[in-house]
């Protein structure tokens, strides 16, 4: 999900000059954008060697860490915004990391592929797991260890007493605010903790 329009849509949610922690920051493109265009500072967390290298090459701070080991290194409320962009589907315990995100950040932004997007539903109705641009993997060979829906996340956020500041879908780089659970390939939630 590194296409420019999508990144811009996420970046718009991040306040100018914010201190950002990007969990699963990939090649550091989003942090780079936030630093250059929004005067942000912060760190990315990555486990993959190639991504760590790409971040270092860009001059983006990156810390090589397995998110499944938790965020013990980071103090409560030590960041303005904690990002989890296309990370949740790779984590063994997404709920623990959601709580950690809420603990470490004054606010959190989570984005992930919305499995309830209508083409996915159609595919399952036909009896097959979807293979789409957004979920391009075969069910038997995928880095995603779970799929979830926009609505599922609303329920999980409620269970963890997170206050949703904004929530919307993203499709082709555009915000989807009407029926996002059916009409958007990506779910985006901006939240804060009590």
């Amino acid at each position, binding site marked *: 999900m590194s296409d420019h329009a999508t990144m811009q849509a996420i970046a718009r949610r991040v306040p100018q000059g914010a*201190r950002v922690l990007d969990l699963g920051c990939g090649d550091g493109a989003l942090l780079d954008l936030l630093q250059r265009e929004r005067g942000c*500072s912060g*760190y990315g967390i990555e486990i993959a*060697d190639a991504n*760590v*290298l790409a*971040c*270092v*090459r*860009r*001059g*983006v*701070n*990156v*810390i*090589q*860490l397995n998110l499944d080991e938790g965020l013990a*290194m*980071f*103090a409560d409320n*030590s960041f303005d915004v904690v990002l989890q962009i296309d990370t949740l589907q790779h984590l063994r315990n997404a709920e623990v990391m959601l709580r950690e995100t809420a603990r470490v950040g004054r606010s959190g932004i989570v984005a992930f592929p919305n499995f309830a997007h209508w083409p996915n539903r159609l595919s399952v109705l036909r009896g097959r797991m979807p293979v789409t641009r957004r979920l391009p993997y075969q069910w038997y060979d995928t880095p995603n260890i779970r799929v979830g829906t926009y609505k599922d996340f609303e329920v999980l956020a409620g269970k963890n007493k997170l206050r949703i500041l904004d929530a919307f879908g993203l499709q082709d780089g555009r915000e989807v605010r009407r029926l996002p659970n059916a009409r958007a390939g990506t779910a985006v939630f901006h939240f804060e903790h009590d």
Partner: protein
Amino acid sequence: MSFIATPQSMHFAEALALQSGASIRDYTLAYETYGTLNADKSNAVLVCHALNASHHVAGVYEGQPKSEGWWDNMIGPGKPVDTNRFFVIGVNNLGSCFGSTGPMHTHPDTGEVYGADFPVVTVEDWVNAQARLLDCLGIEQLAAVMGGSLGGMQALSWTLQYPGRMRHAVVVASAPNLTAENIAFNEVARRAIVTDPDFHGGHFYRHGVIPKRGLRIARMIGHITYLSDDVMNEKFGRQLREGMQLKYSTQDIEFQIESYLRYQGDKFSEYFDANTYLLITRALDYFDPARQHGGSLTQALAAARARFLLVSFTTDWRFSPQRSREIVHALLENRRDVSYAEIDAPHGHDAFLLDDARYMGVVRSYFDSIAKEPT
């Protein structure tokens, strides 16, 4: 074949005050430089060495094709720290035995060889001595200070003692202090040396002997801790040195690993100074920047201004990734710029001296980004 390196030396008449309260005067530092200092003197990189290394970081000596510097794979033209762009300085530390003033040299007050009377030097003292050398070379601010292991401790200490004198610090396979286990290994090595009958309380030079037995054992134990269990098993396993039959001897070499360790010990005892070994392991033991801050590394690192790159290796149990993470944590608490790579390499502590594409790649990329930034 690497480039030709030329050792140089600088004499310092003026006394250097040491952390212990003692001082040292009329001392010499051996150093080497590679590459060219640019017009605004902004491209200098200081490389700090670890226990048994020296100022000979890269290149080979004229007519000695096998004399590569200890970090020749890392530093040189086109290498990760590219001497076509950076002016790299290697300095032999005070108390070492490769050209800088050490226990084997003459005490200017007594006219006798220092021996055991060489003052105890700390990481902080070395950094102060290196800073003086940079003054003489006309370098006000380094592009980066870097080092591995004990060298990494010096790089870290630089950022606290002279926060304005470098833009970046590269700290590889290092730690904010030694653990009890680590001090214990050093102590075993020191006892091996001190209890060697040829040690003579550190004044063995007068007796025309060298405590080689102690040095051999010190090196053997050190060497074990620099490797990983996996790599040792892979390299030696339970292989016998000769044939397939057990000799049922308690004193002969039976296993390959014994033969290897004895060889390493023998080699080391031929070139390394016993007093230097004591001094350098002590400097390792003493290093603990958090000590003056009630044990808080976060408070200690508040002084740092540099941007940091830290690298550790997963199988390094002497300077484990956890220790590097402590430094990363303290830097995060201070909101300093830091990147951290944890390289999944099998070679234990020694990995910091070896070729690993991911490790070399990260350092190369980091120095590429330094080269690109405005000064």
